[in-house]
């Protein structure tokens, strides 16, 4: 388990790129930028609880050569300021990075704090890139990718205690999925913290003789990685997606579009919030309550295989990662 990796990484980036500035809408300390604000007080701009102004103001800074990194909870960086994102930042294609924390159901803060349809909404915006990261290694690499993209970027960022699922020596690559398991029966596509659930499910599925092609996807826009097509073509029975948010418009929809565009006629089942809002509770509770955990993934694999694999909760218990308990 790793702690406060965004904080460390942002300090490194700030040192390398003097034009990086941080804007906060009174949630900076909840988004690991306290140390940045102490170390670089002249590059840390407190904008108060006023996200709309923060977004357009950042556009002004970006026009003058600064690289603004906006910090708040992801929900306040898209739902509340969609028009500002589109007209002030996305249309002129400005390099503004939205560092959105506690994405999806990784907050017990309830519906007002949960960004559950952000991917679907933001995916419709031209010029935008969307990164949905899954572990400490990706936290350490996503800011470089966002910087290099040189346009508007939305990051579903993780904070505080985060597992390291991928070797630190293998950073995230833009628009390039991680192949976590090779197989020919079922393709599993996972993103964000749901990759932990998918890793748990895959381990048990393998024990039951299911051959799984598992891809962890951290770039949701653009969504043109040929590995996705290869995985879909390769598997015999079909695909399951699992994502940290609604199943409408997000990862599952991205995969469905790729299947349709490439004429890949196989079943696709989507695990996530089933067109509903969620309530406030711990992540571990919520993923079970809303049928978006490892067991839910397995049930969907069984549906595609038309087979009862006789997997029980205790089979999954050996592998467990981190919960998210703080508001």
């Amino acid at each position: 388990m790793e702690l406060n990796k965004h904080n460390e990484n942002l300090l490194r980036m700030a040192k390398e790129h003097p034009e990086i500035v941080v804007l906060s809408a009174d949630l900076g300390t909840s988004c690991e930028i306290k140390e940045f604000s102490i170390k670089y007080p002249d590059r840390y701009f407190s904008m108060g609880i006023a996200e709309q102004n923060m977004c357009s103001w950042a556009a002004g800074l970006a026009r003058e050569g600064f690289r603004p990194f906006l910090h708040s909870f992801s929900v306040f960086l898209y739902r509340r300021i969609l028009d500002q994102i589109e007209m002030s930042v996305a249309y002129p294609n400005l390099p503004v990075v939205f560092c959105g924390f506690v994405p999806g159901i990784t907050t017990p803060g309830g519906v007002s704090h949960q960004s559950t349809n952000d991917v679907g909404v933001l995916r419709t915006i031209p010029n935008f890139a969307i990164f949905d990261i899954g572990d400490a290694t990706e936290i350490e690499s996503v800011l470089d990718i966002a910087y290099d993209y040189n346009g508007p970027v939305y990051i579903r960022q993780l904070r505080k205690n985060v597992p390291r699922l991928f070797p630190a020596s293998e950073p995230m690559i833009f628009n390039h999925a991680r192949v976590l398991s090779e197989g020919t029966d079922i393709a599993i596509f996972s993103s964000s913290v749901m990759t932990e659930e998918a890793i748990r499910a895959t381990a048990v599925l393998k024990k039951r003789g299911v051959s799984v092609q598992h891809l962890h996807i951290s770039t949701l826009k653009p969504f043109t990685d040929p590995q996705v097509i290869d995985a879909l073509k390769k598997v015999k029975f079909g695909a399951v997606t699992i994502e940290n948010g609604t199943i409408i418009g997000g990862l599952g929809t991205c995969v469905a579009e790729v299947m349709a565009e490439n004429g890949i006629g196989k079943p696709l089942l989507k695990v996530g919030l089933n067109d509903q809002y969620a309530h406030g509770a711990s992540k571990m509770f919520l993923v079970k309550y809303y049928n978006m955990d490892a067991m839910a993934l397995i049930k969907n694999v069984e549906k595609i295989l038309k087979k009862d694999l006789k997997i029980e909760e205790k089979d999954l218990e050996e592998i467990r990662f981190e919960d998210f308990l703080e508001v």
Partner: protein
Amino acid sequence: MTKKSVTTEKILKAGNNIRKRILGIALKSGGCYLTQACSSADLVATLYLKILNLGPSLGNRDAILFPGVPSKNNMDYQRGAAYNGYDYKNPDFTKDRFFVSCCHYSSVIYCALVEAGRIDASAIDKFNGDGWNMEMIGAEHSPGFENTAGSLGQTISIAAGTAHAYKLKGHTGKIICMLSDGEIAEGQDWECIQAASFYKLDNFSVFVDVNKQQIEGWTKNVMNTEPLEERFKAFGWACVKVNGHDVEAIINASKTKHKGKPLAILCETDVARGIPLLKTMVPKHFVRIPENQREEFLKFYENM
């Protein structure tokens, strides 16, 4: 002709020419944002001919075809700010930047560019013409426009962010933003007004065309935004109120010292100024010349 030598008469003449051109558009095409031209023409003429410190225009003198929306593959399009002398690749940071938030006034801006000798009068023939850069509501590429301002409330923040950047970098150019009073009902304006004060942006000023009208009627009846002077001052701004048709007063107000504070200049204006025939029609967001008054307007136009 240097700015210093520009007389009040010359500026008022330019204001009249702006109104005339836009009345001409309204007569030709059936309608235009004519009341906004009446209220703001003197202010915009004063800004372009006297107050703004801009480099020579770098834009095409005539209209150009729409250069395409900005994207990774299209970032070298001709910016609207080029007409204000702003070269985004090699800026002169001692010059001013002019942001227009009330972008329904684009015809006024285009016509002011004609009066300032920054575009040719023939460009106005392409106003609102399909496929051209002279759109009815301006965007990044439209002559005189820095940004896409059609969704109200955002431009003041973009301009303030630019002013913030200029202060951080020690640039001496000033950032000037034009608003109209109707849009000040937007919450984002007040978010920005408090932030601009918080960051002591004394290189930043806004000119407000207080024409007291908006789409559904008089502003005081749609959503009262007064008292603006007291409101700006309460938010920590320097603020002066002038007659927006008094060129000298606007110029003097622009010289108001505002160390440590942003400056708001409230220009009280008349939406029928210069075209009295409009008096019975206002408040009117978009003027369509009534068929039974066409001859009357045409005659007035010819004598303007």
